[in-house]
């Protein structure tokens, strides 16, 4: 079986970014809890050029996190392959990718270590790598915190700052390692809409300065269109691309984009597809229940 959606040839979104392209090729993931096979990802192919913000949208439980975990190397895939910059991450011969600091996940519920101060959290990756001296690492960490508007929170623990700031610390912690790809799993799900809008602009600002590839899972269409170069709308479980929506609104973007006519057009186009899939997922749930 091949993907229903025709893939456009991937081309770099920004010329200056040459690293971090992802090629997800015919990936299948079947969970097998006690023999009851659950197909979470079904022959899914997605090509993500280096430097793209690729938004993955799909109904609850369709298998988005599963796909992300496969890229990150948290579990194996059943068949297919994933390449990053032409190098095999997982595929025949090695069904599970090795997690590494070239692909860093920002988790659904956040995973800053509550027992480390913000500064220690941010210094964590380079400290583990041990390539730089401690003082170099901490100097870089302080600079990056200052750039991200986090000065003054260095010696606080994550539990002491607002959830919006925590997300920012987590992104800075990832960027400290010069990753090629950032993998976001609905990082702003728990935030209120005001904080969310600030976080979106902050994320774009970070993106413009660092130019990484971003693989971003979300439920929120507005968020998806505002941030992404492309929306990959997934079918209900098992997950595979159902429709790809190009967001041809030029970057850099700011919040005025939200009220533009083009934004609304893309929104209504995407909404139709998403609604249809959500309905399918709901009906499937009814049947199972």
């Amino acid at each position, binding site marked *: 079986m091949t993907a229903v959606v025709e893939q456009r040839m991937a081309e770099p979104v920004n010329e200056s970014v040459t690293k971090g392209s992802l090629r997800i090729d015919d990936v299948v993931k079947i969970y097998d809890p006690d023999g009851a096979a659950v197909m979470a990802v079904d022959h899914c192919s997605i090509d993500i050029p280096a430097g793209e913000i690729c938004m993955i949208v799909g109904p609850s439980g369709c298998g988005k996190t599963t796909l992300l975990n496969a890229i990150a190397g948290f579990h194996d895939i059943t068949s297919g392959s994933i390449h990053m910059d032409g190098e095999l991450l997982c595929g025949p011969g090695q069904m599970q990718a090795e997690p590494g600091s070239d692909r860093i996940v920002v988790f659904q519920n956040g995973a800053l270590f509550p027992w480390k101060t913000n500064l220690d959290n941010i210094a964590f990756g380079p400290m583990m790598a041990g390539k730089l001296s401690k003082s170099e690492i901490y100097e870089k960490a302080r600079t990056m915190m200052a750039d991200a508007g986090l000065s003054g929170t260095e010696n606080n623990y994550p539990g*002491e700052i607002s959830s919006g700031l925590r997300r920012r610390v987590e992104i800075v912690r990832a960027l400290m390692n010069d990753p090629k790809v950032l993998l976001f799993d609905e990082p702003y799900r728990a935030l209120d809409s005001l904080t969310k*809008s600030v976080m979106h602009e902050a994320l774009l600002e970070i993106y413009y300065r660092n130019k990484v590839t971003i693989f971003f899972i979300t439920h929120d269409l507005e968020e998806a269109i505002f941030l992404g170069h492309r929306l990959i709308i997934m079918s209900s479980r098992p997950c595979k691309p159902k429709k790809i929506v190009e967001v041809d609104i030029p970057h850099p973007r700011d919040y005025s984009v939200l009220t533009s006519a083009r934004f609304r057009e893309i929104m209504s186009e995407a909404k139709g597809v998403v609604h249809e899939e959500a309905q399918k997922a709901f009906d499937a749930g009814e049947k199972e229940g």
Partner: protein
Amino acid sequence: MANSSEVADSAVSMAAPQSTEISSMSLTMYRVSNWLKSPRPYLMVIGFAAVLSFWYFAVEVWKLPRFQDMPGLTEVFSEWFSKDPYYGLSVYTPEYYKHIGISLRRIGFAFLLATGLGVPLGLFLGWSKTFREYVFPLFELFRPIPVLAWVPLAIIMFVGSETPVVFLTFLASFFATTLNTMLGVESIDESYSRAARCLGANRWQTFKHVVVPGAMPYIFTGLQISIGVAWFSLVAGEMVSGQFGLGYVINTSYMMIEYPKIIIGMITLGIVGYSTSAMVRLLGDYLMQWRVRELALGDS
């Protein structure tokens, strides 16, 4: 869009960092002053007063039927604080402190041993599935055996009167510490170790930076329980084996019909036991500043 940027600004300031650092000293002060403002200290005083006056009236005024042989409040307290105690045990006699010291030393040995063995064992049990399959069933079999059931074996196994007592005290502490540590490792959210691996930590680094600190809150819950059961087993041990110690005082006073000394021993046990568990709690607060600060924010 002036409007939306205004909104954005206010959201930023709402999310502004809490940059004031809370030192542990000022935190303690803050807690004490909060405590004094709350009704709790006064309720506590009332609680103490109620129990003590019941004791006083029941024994010395109303002379209730089953209370005749009980030592009275005034008798116990005058004995306890007497320079020349009738039964030879008061805060002025060196012997009193010798009993406390010896009990404390046994608790100290047993508690340190239980912690030193139980915490690493618990960490490995939680961390390694294979290790757990070997060890845990054995552990589960031994755990329900009450300390008192170990008394004869302890006396047979160990020479002298000191080691059996320390062994008995150690046992229950060890199980409590190990079990809680293991649960602590299991309680750690998987995304923390995933994040650590993403950030390039190897297995050992993950153990050190995620597993150990992540299990810490449960470890200290375990140590609280551990110090409690240590006193419990110590007294049991001192009653059947050993010389000196608060359990020994209580037991021999009963046999020698020196009843006020029983109560002195009991109250002393309460005070010393409470102090040791308070010390464990303070150590936990010291090692887990992050938790203390989170809780302090949650309270206010």
